């Protein structure tokens, strides 16, 4: 008998309260927010007060708010962590997203009722690992983006934990504590007295010398340097497969995009997902996305259909 799964949640990242409001209206079932130094590559910066407001907005519309506490934490960051998690628990945040085991331990001690979702970048890759964390009370695992479709379905069938996948947006392919852009600028200045000028808001890209058509966004923040994928994953044509496999949460990451784009994409995924659940998915959604897709963000499918060697 086909296992009866509930409809996957549509999860979107939000960068401010305006996006929270608009994304909820666009059909998001849950929103991910970050801030206070604990979120890793969060698209915005939410203070505790803003998180509280977001929760009011979301809960009044039967939607959820997850707060990202998924940075790699050095000793300094542990100060204040317990208080932060207790506050989030007090506000009744629907889950905290973590990567570093220190958050799990601190939550167990200071906020034991706070649901936890695992998001450990590239290192959530098999059933046993997920079940290891499930045994410690973790509710959901956000799988590594280097897994194939077959591999993620295999995991879903056997994991004792909810499973979340990225279905739209950029992925991080490199995370360093070093400030690699600043280092390069300083080197140019020291080496050739070249003061590199580019507008503050300029988006920076890396092109590798043998691969001139692939543009990899790179940026620096308090957690170091991040290099993103050259393509946006777009799995809108495969939603039926995710629904049939019972995937619990499907995430759209808006990090590199405008609010306008994110709202439109969310609306399209909302329609497509409802279709996939109720009837069958019609073709053509991906063409709608292509119409609004920025030229320098080609669409792709990540590693869902790609073989890797080692």
């Amino acid at each position, binding site marked *: 008998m086909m296992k009866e799964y509930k409809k996957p949640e549509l999860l979107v990242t939000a960068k401010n309260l305006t996006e929270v409001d608009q994304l909820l209206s666009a059909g998001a079932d849950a929103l991910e927010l970050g801030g206070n130094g604990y979120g890793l590559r969060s698209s915005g910066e939410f203070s505790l007060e803003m998180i509280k407001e977001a929760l009011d907005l979301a809960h009044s519309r039967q939607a959820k708010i997850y707060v990202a506490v998924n940075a790699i*934490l050095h000793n300094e960051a542990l100060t204040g962590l317990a208080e932060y998690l207790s506050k989030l628990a007090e506000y009744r945040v629907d889950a905290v997203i973590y990567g570093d085991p220190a958050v799990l331990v601190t939550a167990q001690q200071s906020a034991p009722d706070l649901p936890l979702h695992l998001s450990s970048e590239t290192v959530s890759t098999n059933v046993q690992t997920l079940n290891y964390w499930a045994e410690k009370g973790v509710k959901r695992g956000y799988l590594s983006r280097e897994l194939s479709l077959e591999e993620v379905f295999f995991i879903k069938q056997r994991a004792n934990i909810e499973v979340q996948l990225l279905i739209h947006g950029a992925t991080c392919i*490199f*995370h360093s504590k070093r400030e*690699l852009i600043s*280092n390069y600028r300083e080197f140019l200045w020291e080496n050739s007295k070249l003061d590199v000028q580019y507008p503050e808001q300029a988006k920076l890209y890396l*092109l590798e*010398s043998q691969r001139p058509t692939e543009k990899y966004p790179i940026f620096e923040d308090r957690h170091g340097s991040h290099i993103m994928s050259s393509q946006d994953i777009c799995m809108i044509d495969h939603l039926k497969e995710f629904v049939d496999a019972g995937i619990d949460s499907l995430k759209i990451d808006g990090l590199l995009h405008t609010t306008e784009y994110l709202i439109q994409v969310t609306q399209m995924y909302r329609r497509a997902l409802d279709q996939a659940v109720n009837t069958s998915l019609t073709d053509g959604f991906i063409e709608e996305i292509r119409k609004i897709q920025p030229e320098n963000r080609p669409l792709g499918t990540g590693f869902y259909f790609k073989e890797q060697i080692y």
Partner: protein
Amino acid sequence: MTTSKRPELLAPAGNLEKLEFAVRYGADAVYIGGQQFGLRAKAGNFSFAEMEKGVAFAHKHGALVYVATNIIPHDADLEGLEEYLTTLESVGVDAIIAADPSIIHTAKSIAPRLEIHLSTQSSTTNWQTAKFWRDEGVKRVVLAREVSLKEIKEIKQHTAVEIETFIHGAMCNSYSGRCVLSNHLTSRDANRGGCAQSCRWQYDLFAEDGELDWSRIADSENVRVNPDIPYTMGSKDLCMIEALPELIEAGVDSFKIEGRMKSIHYVATVVNAYRQAIDAYLADPKGYRFDPRWLEEISRASHRPLTLGFYYNPTTYNDQIYQEGPKVRKFDFAGLILDYDQITKIATIEQRNHFMIGQEVEFFGPKTRFVQRIDRIEDESGTEIDAARHPQQIVKVRVDHPVNPFDMMRKEN
């Protein structure tokens, strides 16, 4: 003598021969890879038979052997894990180095006598996480390279888990385990052994402010941040030999040298230098003075510029390699000393690189260090020859000072 704790000097051993040299040259422990579950898919990698020999050799010399089982496995990769771990347990290796909970959990369940060390691939950066893993039964944590000396002291204060840190060798640019550049650029999975060191390749950094025409990228000087100096991210090699007293006093339990892919010459030279420095400090901490010859030794084997990594300050451009560095003198391993006759003062040498009459060479080993010019070479039958031309050719060379079996001879490139 000092009351400072004696740290373990931990060396990489890509194959059995390298393991033996690492131990002879002073390593207290070595880490190796087997044929499954380890990163560095291209390193020598030990069969179980070789592991048994390696463990026997190391234990005879009072050294320990750790096996890296540090991949981040996909489900298909886990096949055979239980058998592999139980075999390691029966071979008698002293610990496994694992990163993924799947491997740690399986080891605890089915090979409980195997000590578990947590790999740097897990990027442990704070005391709470180190403590967590100790509570999970992990005996030792290999910290992320991004942890400072100050942070190490804080970690030691909060938890009794053993702490191992890298003190020498190549560094990842990223947080270990958090880089899939090679996956994206070459489809080779960095977290399962396929790392292509893509961070060391050449890139161009472009700025786009929303108004520029991307089709002009290839020719546009305006867009490229700097046309003459490519952007690159390669890190200099870590070298903490001048900071050993501080590392010892901070209580670091194990000093790890990177380099399973490195040569015998590299391993022996680097281990030898650190061994001498550590022993000198422990023998007389107050009177300890750093000997610049230790750094000179290291530069005989290691050609990349050096850095102190994250130990003291946040890294800057001085810790990255942007261009060809200043020319360094390069040395090659030229011969392995097999025997020495103290009456005739003749060393029996196995050729590892061409050398000839008139050439200046250096002899070095745990108790040896001198320079001389070769003035006489004989082949095995006693015939004088002008050069040792063939790999592994056995020759006899007159030496100015005594040498010991397993000493090495090097020449300038």
